[in-house]
Structure formats: C-alpha cells, structure tokens
C-alpha cells in the first residue's frame, strides 16, 4: 500500500468503471449474456479502491475525541491529471476584487493579468471520499441485482455500458476540483440519465420521459453555467483549490484554504446571492426540487435498477453535493441559505402530499425521493455545521434504504410480470418473503422509526431546523462563537513554500463576510427572511412531512404485501421470489439500512469525518459547530409523527384489498388535486411546451417550404442548364464539326486580336 499513492488510487476510482464501460461497448455483442462482466469488474474494483481511500482519509482525519475536541484540520489532496485549457492573459483582476483576497498579498498584485486555466484536477477530501464510497458500493450492489433483473433484455450490454459510464461520470463529478470540470460531468450524468431513462426507447412514454428529464435538467444546467460565469468574473479562477502561479504567488481557489481562512475572502451581497441562487437552480434541476421536480416521477419509465441507482442514491444527490461543496459561498449570503431551506422544505411537503395518493409503487418511491431530497436541502439551508453534516448523513442513509426500496419494487415488478400498480396485486408477503422483509426494513428506515438508520439522520435534520427556529432552546449558540474559536487557519502542508496568512482568529459574524456591504432590494428582502419565525415554520413543515412520509410508505407496504393474496394475469408463472442474484443484494442493502444510522450516530464518526472537509473548516461554518447531543424531545416529536402516520395507514390499508377507495373517500376533492400532481405538469405544458411546439412547427414549415425549396431550386439549376446544353447533342456530325471549327476560329481570333499591332 505504500507504493501506491493516493493520487493513483483516486484516479482509479473513475477510471475503472470507464474502462469497464468501454470494454462493454466493444465486446458487449460478443459476450452476450456475460456482458455484465467488464462493468461489474470495473465497478467492483472501483468500490474496493474507494473504500481504501475512505479508510485512508479517515485515518488522516483521526478519531473524534469527544466533546471538547481539538479543532479539526482540513484534509485535502489534489491530484492534477493534465491541463485541459489555458488562455493567457484572460483575466485582469480589478483592484480590491476578491480575485486576490482583499487585504492580503495572496493572489498576486492587482492589475497583473492571469490566465484562464482549466486543469483536470481531482480532489480527495472527506466529502468526496464519502460520496465515492457510496456511489461505487451501491453501484456495485445494484449492478449485481441488474444481472438478474435485465436478464432477458435484448439491450443487456447497452445497459451495463451506460451504467458503468454513469458511475464514471458521477465519480468524476464528486472528485473534480474545478467548476468547469464539474459542469462537464454534471452534463455527463444528465446524459447517462437520459440514456437510462430512455433505455426502452421504442416505448413512446419512455422516450418522452427521457426527453423531459433532459430538458428540465437543462434549465438547471443553465443555472450552473451562469454561476460558473459569475464565479469566474468575481474570483478570477474556477478552481476549488489554491494553485501556484508561475511567479510563485498563490492563486487562491474559490474554495481554497487560503481564501477560506480569510474571513473577507468570499463575496456576499448581490453578486454572491446571485451566484448562490444560480447554484441553487442547478441543484434544483438535478435533485428534482420545486419547480424542476417534474422529471423524476416520469423517469420511472426506465429500468428499476437505473432508478435505484441514479434516481435514489447518486445522481439526484449531485445537487446536495454541489450546495454542500459550495457551503462557504452560501454561508456568506444568508438570503440564499434561507431560500435553499424554503425550497427544500416546501418541496418535501408537496411531494409527500402527492405521494399519498399515488397507486404506482415506483411513483410513490419517486415522490418519496423528492421529499427526502427536500429534507436534505432544508438541512443544508440552515448554514450550520450540524445542518451540513446532517444533510450528508441523511444522504448516506437515504442512499441505502431508498436503493433497497427501489430494488424491492423491482423485485415485485419482476414477479408480477411488469405490473407495478399496487391496486392489482396484494398479500405478496406469502409469495415473496425475502422481498417483503427487506422492503419492510427499508420502509421502517424511510419512515424514521428508531433504531433504523433513517431515524437518526432525520432526527439530526430536525435538530438543525429546530436550532435555527429556537436558537436558545438547548442552550447552544449556533452562530457567533467565543473568541477562542479554533477555526482552522493553518494551511495544509502539501502546498510547499506557502506563506501563512493571518493566523489570529477573528470573531466571526456572518454579516461581516458580506464583501461589498450592500444588502439592498431583492437581496435585502431575501436576507430579511432569515428570521427565527421562518425557521419555525420550516420546522413544522418538516415534522408534518415526517408524518406523511411514514403514512405513504406504510400505505404502500400494506397495499403490496398484506391483505388477500392477489396476482395479476401478466404474472403468469413468474409469481415467485426473485432469484438469489436479485435477493442477495436486497439483503446486503438491508443491513446498513438497519444499523448504519445508529452506528454512525453513536460513534459521531461521520460528522467528525466530514467536518474535516475544507468547505466545512471555513470559519463561518466551523464556528457553528456544536457538540452533538441526542435531543430527546425532538426524537419523541419525530417518532410520534411517524407513529401517527403508520397507524393511519394501518387503519386504512392493513389487511385489506389494495384496490379499495379509501384514499378517495378520505381526501375527497383534494385527492384529484394531488393525483394530478398539483397540476404543475399541465401548467408547464401550457406555459412552455405548447408555445415551443408551435415554434417548432413554424420552424419545420419554414424549413420545408422555404429552405428546402431554395436548396432544391439551386440543385435544379445545373439540371436545367444541362437540359439546355443537351439540346446541342443531336448526333449530326457535321454540326459537331461546325462547332469545332467555330471554336477554333474564336480562339484564333482572340489570339489575333491580342497580337495585333
């Protein structure tokens, strides 16, 4: 292990699935039913490497030392693969701009022009290591599951190739250390998602769903692009990390440690808020938050393993990753932070409401994903270290149990002959005991029942929201910290020859971080939303959502697995438990769904580990650290909500036939409203889709009647000319001879004219 450097291992994690993808593309046709081998080998190797990296990084961070821990030093390793683009002299920082950190000498002299430089650089820090491990390990489990699920599909090799390509893209996304590289792989995962949703492209609904997903994601990508432009203009670089310029000065990266150590390094105010809101838009697009959530339910047209991987565990978490990574930027703009939470909480509530009336098991899980992602955003928006780490904690546990639930749904679908409407089957626990048991484990985790994993992560989220709404309730201060704050200011050792910047700690008030000091107009209004009252509302919304989550989850469980045993005709002779290649992954995923939450919480390992991420060691974030305690009152509130939800679901559905009219009778007119997804799709259709279709029709008519006519006319010109010339060829030799003579005479005349005199 000493011989292999971490940089090599880091490159291997995305590289191995890429190699697997390429091999599958090349050899897939030949391997046929063994076409999964290169992809599985690549992902498995990548998973092993990712776990090794995780353990190595954890060793560097060290163990948590208890309540009065030493300040956590940031752990970061940058490995630059190659220089992708360089444009010299592309940026001249205006004096006093954030490009060089104002007030320090870091970043070179103002006025010296810098190059536009995009290195393909990968980074390894606790956040990346965690996500890499999640992506590859869950990817491996789902890939093994897919061997059974996609067994008879004619597109078998194509599935594994795109799957492997997706793992590569997602790994690169979380490991990239430059905004442009992130953008590239942001798009790449979108493309892989399109390919997987539209896997059965001959089905019109699948093709439409894939198109919808891609187009809605595009709106988010637009946000990321604008954010990238603004970041370049504000900071003069697109790197996360600090780099050394040719003349020896440090070019501070946007999230580099020299910038984060300086309290005025991050720009706030109007520009900062604009950047953060654009990043939020991008995150909404990728993580299916309001108003860009419409693609995720339709994306269930794709194969269930694809849904399990990308729409539960990995791709949709890219938005969470982005906001978590750019935490310092958000923390400098309190208005943007509040907006994140508001969006998250609202989405969570609305999605949970819609999920209560869905009859398609996968749609329930899709809306559940949207809702849980909303939870994570709500937690991120609190801006505290607890909030950020709680969001990532929930991301990890959610990855496990949601993937488990999706694979279980896939298992059900597989035996029911591709029928997934819950009203058409029931009482399946007799037929599929393993699936039922693992699905129950996942459902308990999702509902937040102690001691399953979801309980702990949800509890932490509720705690962070509660802490913002009632700042003095637990006797902890979550913002202004005592002067003895141990915010990490020493730069990491891997940047050799670095002059250390100011080392004395500063009293950090978040407001002081606003760069240009103006908070007027819309930004001021947004900032003004950051009041405890807002957070209290968000807390109650989150609690209500917890109850709804438990309700719809167990409604789905009871409708599917309890009641009289019913099997639809499409099942035929398929109605039996899944083969081991599908059942074993379910059992594998059930284990962390059950115990990961308890284990991670009790050892405080994850939050300690994540706090060493450079983004979270910034003073603005790190000073909000509070010792982790178990808030009993919040736990009781959360569990009560969950229990109420489960009980109501049991009253309605336990042991009954699943095609009863309980939901319609209970909700009345609201039922239609939620069943039609709050009419958002229809709204978008009228606002955007129809006008675009009309425009497309105009363009098509123009193309057909004007452009085509013009081109064809031009093509007809030589034909017409030829037709005229053709009339000369009459076959009479004397005419040909005459033409020859006239030609010769013309030439001679011309020569004679030139030579006259």
């Amino acid at each position, binding site marked *: 292990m000493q011989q292999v450097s971490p940089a090599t291992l880091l490159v291997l994690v995305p590289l191995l699935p890429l190699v697997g993808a390429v091999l599958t593309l090349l050899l897939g046709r030949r391997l046929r039913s063994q076409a999964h081998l290169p992809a599985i080998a690549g992902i498995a190797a990548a998973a092993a490497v990712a776990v090794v990296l995780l353990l190595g990084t954890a060793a560097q961070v060290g163990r948590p030392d208890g309540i009065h821990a030493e300040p956590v030093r940031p752990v970061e390793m940058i490995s630059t693969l190659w220089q992708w683009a360089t444009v010299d002299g592309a940026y001249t920082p205006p004096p006093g701009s954030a490009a060089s950190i104002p007030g320090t000498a870091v970043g070179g002299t103002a006025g010296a022009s810098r190059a536009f430089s995009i290195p393909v650089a990968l980074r390894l820090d606790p956040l990346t290591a965690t996500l890499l491990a999640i992506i590859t390990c869950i990817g491996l489990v789902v890939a093994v599951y897919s061997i059974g699920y996609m067994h008879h599909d004619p597109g078998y090799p194509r599935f594994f190739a795109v799957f492997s390509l997706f793992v590569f893209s997602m790994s690169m996304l979380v490991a990239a250390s430059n905004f442009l590289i992130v953008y590239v792989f942001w798009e790449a995962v979108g493309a892989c998602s399109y390919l997987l949703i539209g896997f059965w492209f001959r089905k019109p609904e699948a093709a439409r769903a894939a198109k919808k997903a891609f187009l809605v994601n595009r709106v988010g990508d637009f946000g990321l692009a604008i954010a990238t432009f603004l970041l370049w203009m504000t900071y003069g670089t697109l790197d996360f990390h600090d780099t050394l310029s040719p003349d020896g000065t440090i070019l501070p990266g946007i999230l580099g440690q020299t910038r984060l150590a300086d309290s005025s390094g991050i720009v706030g105010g109007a520009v900062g808020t604009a950047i953060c809101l654009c990043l939020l838009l991008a995150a909404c697009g990728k993580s299916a938050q309001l108003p860009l959530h419409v693609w995720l339910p339709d994306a269930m047209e794709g194969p269930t393993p694809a849904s399990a991987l990308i729409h539960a565990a990995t791709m949709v978490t890219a938005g969470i990753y982005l906001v978590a990574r750019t935490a310092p930027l958000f923390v400098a703009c309190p208005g943007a932070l509040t907006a994140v939470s508001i969006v998250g909480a609202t989405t969570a509530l609305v999605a949970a409401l819609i999920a209560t009336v869905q009859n398609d098991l996968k749609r329930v899980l899709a809306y559940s994903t949207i809702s849980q992602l909303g939870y994570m955003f709500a937690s991120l928006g609190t801006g505290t270290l607890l909030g950020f780490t709680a969001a990532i904690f929930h991301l990890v546990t959610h990855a496990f149990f949601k993937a488990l639930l999706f694979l279980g749904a896939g298992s059900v679908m597989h035996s029911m002959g591709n029928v997934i409407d819950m009203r058409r089957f029931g009482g399946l626990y007799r037929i599929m005991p393993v699936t039922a048991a693992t699905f129950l484990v996942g459902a308990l985790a999702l509902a937040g029942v102690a001691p399953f994993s979801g309980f702990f992560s949800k509890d932490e989220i509720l705690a962070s929201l509660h802490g913002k709404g009632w700042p003095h309730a637990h006797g902890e201060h979550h913002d202004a910290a005592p002067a003895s704050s141990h915010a990490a200011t020493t730069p990491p050792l891997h940047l050799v020859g670095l002059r250390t910047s100011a080392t004395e700690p500063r009293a950090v008030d978040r407001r002081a971080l606003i760069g240009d000091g103006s908070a007027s107009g819309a930004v001021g209004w947004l900032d003004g939303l950051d009041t405890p009252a807002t957070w209290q509302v968000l807390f109650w919304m989150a609690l209500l959502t917890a109850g709804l989550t438990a309700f719809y989850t167990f409604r789905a469980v009871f409708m599917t697995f309890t009641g009289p045993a019913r099997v639809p005709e499409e099942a035929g002779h398929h109605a039996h438990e899944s083969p081991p290649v599908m059942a074993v992954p379910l059992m594998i995923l059930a284990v962390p769904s059950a115990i990961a939450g308890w284990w991670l919480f009790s050892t405080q390992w994850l939050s300690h580990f994540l706090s060493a991420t450079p983004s979270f060691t910034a003073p603005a974030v790190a000073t909000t650290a509070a010792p982790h305690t178990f808030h009993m009152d919040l736990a009781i509130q959360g569990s009560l909500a969950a229990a109420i939800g489960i009980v109501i679901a049991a009253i309605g559905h336990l042991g009954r036939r699943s095609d009863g009219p309980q939901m319609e009778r209970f909700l009345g007119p609201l039922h239609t409203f939620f069943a039609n997804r709050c009419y958002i799709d229809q709204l978008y259709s009228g606002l955007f889709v129809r006008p675009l279709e009309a425009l497309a029709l105009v363009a098509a008519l123009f193309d057909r009647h004007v452009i085509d006519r013009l081109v064809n006319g031009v093509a007809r010109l030589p034909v017409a000319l030829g037709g005229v010339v053709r009339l000369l060829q009459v076959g009479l030799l*004397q*005419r040909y001879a*005459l033409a020859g*003579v*006239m030609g010769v*005479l013309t030439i*001679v005349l011309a020569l*004679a004219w030139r030579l006259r005199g």
Partner: protein
Amino acid sequence: MTPVASLSPGMILAGAVTAAAASLWLLLPRGAENRLARWLGLVLGAAALAGFIVTGRRLGGLGEEAVFLVVSLVAVISGAATIVTRSPVYSAIWFALALAGVAGVLLVLGAQFLGVATIVVYAGAILVMFLFVLMLAQPSGLASYDRVSNEPLLSAVAGAVLLGLLSLTIGRLSADPTCCAVPAKSDAVTGGDGERKSAVPAAADPLAADQVARLGGELFGRHLLAVEVAGVLLLVALIGAIAVVARGEAALEDDRRLAAGGARR
C-alpha cells in the same frame, strides 16, 4: 472608280470576303429552288472575285498576270461550283475542272511534275473512284439530302472568318520587308560545295532541263525513308480496304440471315 480606289486594301478585302460569304450562302442548296437567290449569289460572287483580284499583287508583266489570273479563276470558280451544285455527278465534273485549274497554277509556279501529277493521280484515279461510287450508290434523280444543306449560314460565316483571317495574314506577310527574306544564293550550277547548294539554283530556275530529275534526286535522296514509308502506306491502304469490304460482306450476310430467322454464323 475613285470611291473604290480610295478604300484601303484591307477594307476591299473585307468587302470581298463578306460578298463571297453572302454569295455562298445564297448559292448553297437550301431546299426549294430560288432563281432570285441564284442570280444574286452569282452577282455577289463575281463582285467578291473582283475584290480579291484587286487586292492581289501586280506580277511582273501583263502576260504573267493574265495566265495566272486565268488559271486561278478557273480553279476558284470550279471549286465554288463543286460545293454548290445539287447533283453530285456535276459536282465531280466541276471538281475535275478545278483540278485542271490547280494544275495550271502549279505549272505557273514552276512545279512541273506536280502539275502533271495532279491531273494524273487526282483526276485520273481518285476522281474516277468517286464516280464509280456515285454510279453504285446514287439514287436516280436528286435525292432529298442533295437539296438541303446543313447550317449554310453559319458555315458560310465560318468560312468567311477563316478566309478573312488568312488573307489578312497573307497581306501582313507580304507587306513586311523583313519577313520571308530569302538568303542570297549563288548561281553556281556547278556543284562542288555539296548537294544542297547545287539543288537551290535548280529549283530557283524551273525552266532548267533537269528540274524534274533534281526533284527526284531530292526526293530519293533526303526523303528516301519517307518514300519507302509512303509505299508501305499505299500497300496497307490497299489491304485494309479489301479487309473491310470482306468483313463488311460477312456482316451483311449475317444480318440477312438473322432477318430471315436463322442463326448467326
């Protein structure tokens, strides 16, 4: 004719060429017989000839001029008649007359052998061959294709342009004193300086007794190889003609056999 004399030779030439072209166009067979066109053509042709005569150079004395004028007129008028008459047999006869004119011109220019050879070979052999073919192939009466011409106007214009160019060039040529300077040649009849030198005066003097002999000597001396090749060429033409006829006969036989429903041999 003062107005005519005041015109430059170039303009007279241009007028003559135009008149010649117009007359040819009028005279060429163009379908229905048109007496007016014929008369007009003849008049214009005469005018053209007059124009050409006027632009010609004065020769030494009236005698030479007269002889040259007569034979060249015979040649030219017969040549024009060859291409203009409707009946191909008449055309052949006019051609014979043209040959006589050309032979006369050649004799005036001092090429005694060639003058006679023209008559013997052309009029005696080639023309007779043409007449044989006419005898075999010509329909009785005037065929339709004898009464129509192919693009007479354009062809006449092309001929006119060509003639104009050529006569302009000839005019330039003879007007330029430095052109065509003939190197001074000694009159020594006695050889001694070599064959080439002695051949020059003989050619310069067409009345020498051994002029034809000297021509023969030149021919079989310097151009022996060409003579031999020419002989072989004649043999090849002979064999080729026979071969084509033989094969042609076989092909015709096959065609008739096929038409009768038999198999190709």
